[in-house]
């Protein structure tokens, strides 16, 4: 899967929930080898050298036949704000596909759960699709999605996944849609209530949620496959900027880091040192964008 730098044409841009946008990019070379869980680096500026760095976004939907993919993003700062201002017909420089990807569950597993918090839903759509295909190969297979958002207006529609056969549960922190609580509450309670026993979790969301899901999975003795974030400069393994604290291969106590863009973004949750992670600061949009 060679990495490519491609001038992508912005085919469609759509606001799909509060501060959340989906854009379709025509980039046949990148699309040709894209796999769910991988990401692209998107050049934000067209005008000068500020903002300087590209921003990473997961493949949200991959349309191989059309040579295009979609990304779904939340406006959290200047880069994403500027991206939300881009218009159809403009071009964006994109580098990809980058990083590793989700792999199908081993043969003996039948029930898997996707867990998504907030914009963590982004990579789950394409991956949910593939898992739905996987489930169609065997009657006993089940795919669940547990999707938590802060409030109803931020919930990205999941109809497409449901239609494909992914059983979807939704919660919001404030109870304005679905169950009231976090994605983990949702997962935990729903599994109890409906006696669902996932054999594997695929999770994406904010650090605090991911850490909680990791703990839950450990308690349940389940593997949890996580798509993680980190501040990135290059996305191609060159700068070593995207390090996260991890369990060293030799299980010693020495300092060890993994790199989200190279060994990730998809990790086995047991390999990450959750308690050592620095949370991403959250900045009120009213101060950051204009």
């Amino acid at each position, binding site marked *: 899967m060679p*990495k490519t730098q491609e001038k992508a044409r912005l085919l469609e841009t759509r606001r799909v929930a509060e501060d959340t946008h989906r854009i379709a990019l025509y980039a046949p070379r990148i699309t040709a080898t894209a796999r769910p869980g991988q990401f692209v680096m998107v050049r934000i500026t067209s005008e000068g050298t500020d903002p300087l760095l590209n921003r990473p976004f997961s493949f949200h939907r991959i349309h191989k036949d059309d040579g295009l993919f979609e990304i779904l993003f939340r406006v959290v700062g200047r880069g994403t704000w500027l991206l939300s201002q881009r218009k159809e017909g403009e071009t964006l420089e994109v580098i990809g596909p980058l990083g590793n990807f989700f792999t199908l569950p081993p043969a003996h597993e039948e029930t898997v759960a996707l867990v998504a918090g907030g914009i963590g839903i982004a990579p789950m759509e394409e991956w949910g699709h593939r898992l739905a295909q996987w489930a169609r190969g065997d009657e006993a297979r089940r795919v669940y999605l547990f999707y938590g958002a802060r409030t109803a207006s931020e919930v990205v529609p999941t109809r497409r996944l449901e239609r494909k056969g992914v059983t979807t549960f939704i919660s919001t922190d404030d109870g304005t849609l679905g169950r009231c609580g976090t994605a983990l509450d949702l997962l935990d309670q729903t599994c109890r209530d409906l006696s669902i026993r996932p054999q594997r979790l695929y999770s994406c969301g904010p650090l605090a949620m991911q850490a909680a899901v990791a703990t839950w999975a450990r308690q349940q003795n389940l593997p949890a496959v996580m798509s993680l974030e980190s501040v990135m400069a290059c996305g191609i393994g060159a700068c070593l900027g995207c*390090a996260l604290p991890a369990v060293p291969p030799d299980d010693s106590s020495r300092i060890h880091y993994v790199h989200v863009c190279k060994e990730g973004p998809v990790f086995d949750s047991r390999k990450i040192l959750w308690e050592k992670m620095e949370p991403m600061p959250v900045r009120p949009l009213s101060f950051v964008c204009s």
Partner: protein
Amino acid sequence: MGKDGTHARSAPELRVQLGPLSLKNPVLTASGTFGYGQEFSDFLDLARLGAVVVKGISLEPRPGNPPPRVTETPAGMLNAIGLENVGVERFLAEKLPSLRRRNATVIVNILGNSEQEYAALAERLEDAEGIAALEVNISCPNVKEGGIAFGTDPKTAARVTEAVRQKTHRPLIVKLSPNVTDIGLIARAVEAAGADIISCINTVSGMAVDVFSRRPKLANVLGGLSGPAIKPVALRCVYQVVHAVSCPVIGIGGIQTALDALEFLLVGASAVQVGTANLVRPTAAVEVLDGLERFLRHQGLASVQEYIGTLDTTCRLPQAEEACAGDG
């Protein structure tokens, strides 16, 4: 007549000679921004580059600093990678062979926390094949002297240079830090101590904080500023060093385009390194190279050498005496 109004000619000569080091062209990649080269092989042909300067190598592997390690600033970025690297043994066993397979000209950037470490590294690398030169990063703290960087004092800078010089016959590049009062002084000291070539600049010391979480944006608090923001500082340093020493100089700092690279050549650098730009556009270095050739054709120059150091600083007007140069 060509499209740009100039006569078509044979390709301009790009080869440059930097003391003992002969390079096929003056466009190199800067240490730490180009990995070990292989990260870029999907994007460009490493053999086209003047040289690949690899991520700084130490005697032992280093894990690097805790994250966050990078953050963006206006027209720049801060990094505090903490010199994570695979160590010299894995470099020789894995990284160098991969670079050689791709026919890259390789310059090894080395770092340490004592003169002994630098010397030991140079010694270990001396017999390896396929290394065109060593570049000594002297921005590292000298643990014996309370962690003050070697590169901030002419004496310690000279001692590191000498220590490496004694162990290597290879072309020796010493890479200077801009975080000093008088970079010319350091340049003269390392030239006298045996440096064949001086490269500058390393990153400018900087910092960024998040006003909402009230935390530094880098776990290491301080970081190194790089990218277009520092280009004027880099150019000034190169200008000062070119005037302080007689050995060749490699210009580094904020180079994104061929025009940026040409600015450094104009003030007297014999070659340049493209750094942060590689992180933004992995093809940056070859684009600089292509643009450089296009410029030389446009200007009707037969070789890059004809352009190097041709800045005309004569002033038509008397300077105001006693002006505070560059301070308002």
